[in-house]
């Protein structure tokens, strides 16, 4: 299914500017839990959809932002390719635009890059009602400021993503998952040691009891790497379910158990174990640590800051004033200036990301 709603979306933005009515951007509505509530008239974007160009030999794909993520993944799989950053869907309706606007990446992130690393270009409808194109469908491009990457993870506060060009990659020839029994501290130490070796590691997770490691690459290369690491080999179906469903889509009991809010701590991978006593799940070689805790935000944030990172109340923080780490005064000033530069009327997702813009 393919449909170009550029003209309609431009008209909606023009009307919003004229009436000074903020718009609340909605793709598949799968990530409402993340970030702040946005007061505004909903603007549906999922209808603007369709893959515009996929060049397997160029490793590029361009699609309208409303294209369902599964449609893109299916098309890529047919060509033996994938989205290297393994974005989480968090629901069947997830769109490419929502994924890029939220800037979320999955288990492969430390090895294959984040959403922003794979974004090559974007066509954007700004808060001035202008359709602008930045970047392109080529790997290297330094003409003008990198606005396509700036849009990634901006939660729709700088512009409405219309079309997005991404770098895609071949699916690995072979994948193998290993699991080792070990405690969290030992897992961190092992991950640190593994990071210094040139191994075909493509994901890691400590679920509280065991350390799961995924290797991807040439079939012949995985055997020696696996022998070097040790542990027990996980049967492929179970391994895929673990990485895709349990970890990436957060269906692991760690995530689904009722109770305390879910916090995401983004830390230097080599940061030591958290001093907070709460259940946790470690990913990204130690760089992403999930925490279920009722500790006040200040406590969680202070701990993240002490270790050199930042903390987001990922689920259960909708009612919070700032689920994302508040910005320092000089950074906040730059954010306000940029918001003004792209959306001077303040009509795009105001307050959805941070209260101040």
């Amino acid at each position, binding site marked *: 299914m393919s449909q170009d709603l550029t003209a309609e979306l431009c008209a909606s933005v023009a009307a919003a500017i004229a009436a000074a009515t903020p718009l609340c951007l909605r793709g598949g509505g799968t990530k409402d839990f993340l970030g702040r509530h946005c007061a505004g008239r909903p603007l549906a974007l999922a209808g603007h959809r369709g893959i515009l160009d996929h060049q397997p030999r160029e490793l*590029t794909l361009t699609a309208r932002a409303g294209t369902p993520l599964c449609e893109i993944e299916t098309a890529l799989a047919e060509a033996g390719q994938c989205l290297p950053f393994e974005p989480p869907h968090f629901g069947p309706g997830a769109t490419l635009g929502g994924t890029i606007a939220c800037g979320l990446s999955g288990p492969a992130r430390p090895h294959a890059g984040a959403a922003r690393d794979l974004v090559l270009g974007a066509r954007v409808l700004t808060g001035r009602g202008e359709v602008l194109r930045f970047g392109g469908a*080529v790997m290297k491009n330094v*003409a003008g400021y990198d606005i396509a*990457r700036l849009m990634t993870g901006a939660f729709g506060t700088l512009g409405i993503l219309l079309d997005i060009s991404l770098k895609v990659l*071949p699916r690995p020839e072979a994948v193998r998952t290993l699991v080792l029994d070990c405690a969290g501290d030992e897992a961190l130490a092992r991950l640190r040691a593994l990071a210094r070796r040139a191994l075909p590691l493509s994901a890691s997770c400590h679920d509280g009891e065991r350390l799961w490691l995924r290797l991807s690459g040439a079939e012949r290369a995985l055997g020696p*790497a696996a022998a070097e690491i040790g542990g027990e080999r996980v049967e492929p179906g179970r391994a895929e379910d673990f990485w895709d469903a349990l970890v990436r889509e957060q269906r692991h009991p760690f995530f689904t158990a009722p109770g305390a809010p879910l916090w995401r701590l983004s830390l230097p991978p080599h940061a030591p174990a958290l001093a907070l006593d709460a259940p946790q799940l470690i990913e990204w070689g130690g760089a992403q640590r999930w925490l279920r805790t009722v500790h006040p935000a200040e406590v969680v944030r202070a701990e993240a800051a002490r270790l050199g990172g930042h903390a987001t109340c990922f689920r259960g923080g909708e009612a919070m004033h700032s689920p994302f780490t508040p910005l320092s005064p000089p950074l906040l000033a730059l*954010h306000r200036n940029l918001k003004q530069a*792209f959306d001077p009327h303040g009509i795009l997702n105001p307050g959805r990301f*941070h209260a101040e813009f």
Partner: protein
Amino acid sequence: MSRIQPPGRPFDDPELCASRAELARALRTVLPAEAVLAREEEVRPYECDGLSVYRQTPLLVVLPRDVAEVQQVMRLCHQRRVPVVARGAGTGLSGGALPCGEGIVLSLARLDRILALDPEARLARIQPGVRNLAISEAAAAHGLYYAPDPSSQIACTIGGNVAENSGGVHCLKYGLTVHNVLALKLVSAAGELIELGGEALDGPGYDLLALYIGSEGMLGITVEVTVRLLPRPPLARALLAAFDDVGRAGAAVGEIIAAGILPAGLEMMDGPAIRAAEDFIGAGYPVEAAAILLCELDGTEAEVAAQVEAVETLLARAGATEVRVSRDEAERVRLWQGRKSAFPAVGRISPDYYCMDGTIPRRALPEVLCRTAELAAEHDLAVANVFHAGDGNLHPLILFDANRPGELERTEALGARLLELCVEVGGTITGEHGVGVEKLGQMCVQFSARELAQFHAVKSAFDPAGLLNPGKGVPTPRRCSEYRQLPSPAHPHRH
């Protein structure tokens, strides 16, 4: 391309001399006297960067030694509305560090220390004046290296790499500067110290790090950079394949990528470039070939063995007339030597050469090479092509003689047509050298007036007074209307 610049006032212009003396006095209150260069013979070496067809002496040159001094210089210049052009090693190829006659050059050469190298965390925290290669040299003892390796890596600095988002021959697999920098500190136009990113894999708020990298010194002065280091792969092997047809060589690149192989480097040279390199360095290149491909594969021994086998088969099937595989490290280095010395090699066969830098979708390569040859003939000039084939980044080298009247102008006209050709086939006017002053005209071809206005708005968000590297990177609307009126073949442009 098309150097429409107002001619600068002479160095000894009385008015300039007065403001120079006054500003030097003020700067010497915040810097040691010897760190402020004001004499003509002292500032002359700063009049151009690697693109020496553009020259302009600055009002003054300052050489601060630390972040605090950079901040003081910036505050002082901000108060007085003095333009500031930051400079690293001056190896840039687009005139990005060209001075402004009424402003200062802020050299970061003295901020040249590696502040920390943490092998455990695989990070290096470095000052902007550290040379690119020096990072890998310092990391080598720990089996680590810094991946982006622009061809000027012996001389160019990390501050300049951040400004240009530099790549290199390994960026298809290991990424550009933007993929390998975790954090940086910048001094704003107003003199404020701002930190972007951190040692975590992402930071709060907008991705200002991504916006800042590649911004050509127009958003801030980089004073510290934290880079990610990678474990050196245990093994790397190189393959050389010869082709009697450039199109077939291009198609072979597509075959390798389509087979799911991601080489560490994948380079192409055409006949003229092969012969120039072979004459110069004697790497054993097949001089009768129309094109060669150099493909490097790295990883564990098992990985490399599997990939070498696969690539060898693919190359033979794609019509290579000859395929060689390096048997040891010395042979691998020798295979690369010709490619690495391609620019000086071309410099040997021609009095001057002009290196262009566009990116195209790889599938357009046969068409682009064919049209390049036609355009070169129309302009009565020769072109040698060196190509980062894996990521579509073309470096046509236009051979010319600046001493022959009109030849530089013809070269620039041809260069402009070649960049516009890149845009026409869906590519971009610069893959890694930046816009600088060189490609301001072509920016008007690649971007609409509204897109350019948006760039100016982003610039204002960081530097409302427009003091940082003024006149670079993004053309003014006036500049675009002048460019479009130049007497030359129809400029395809968007409104």
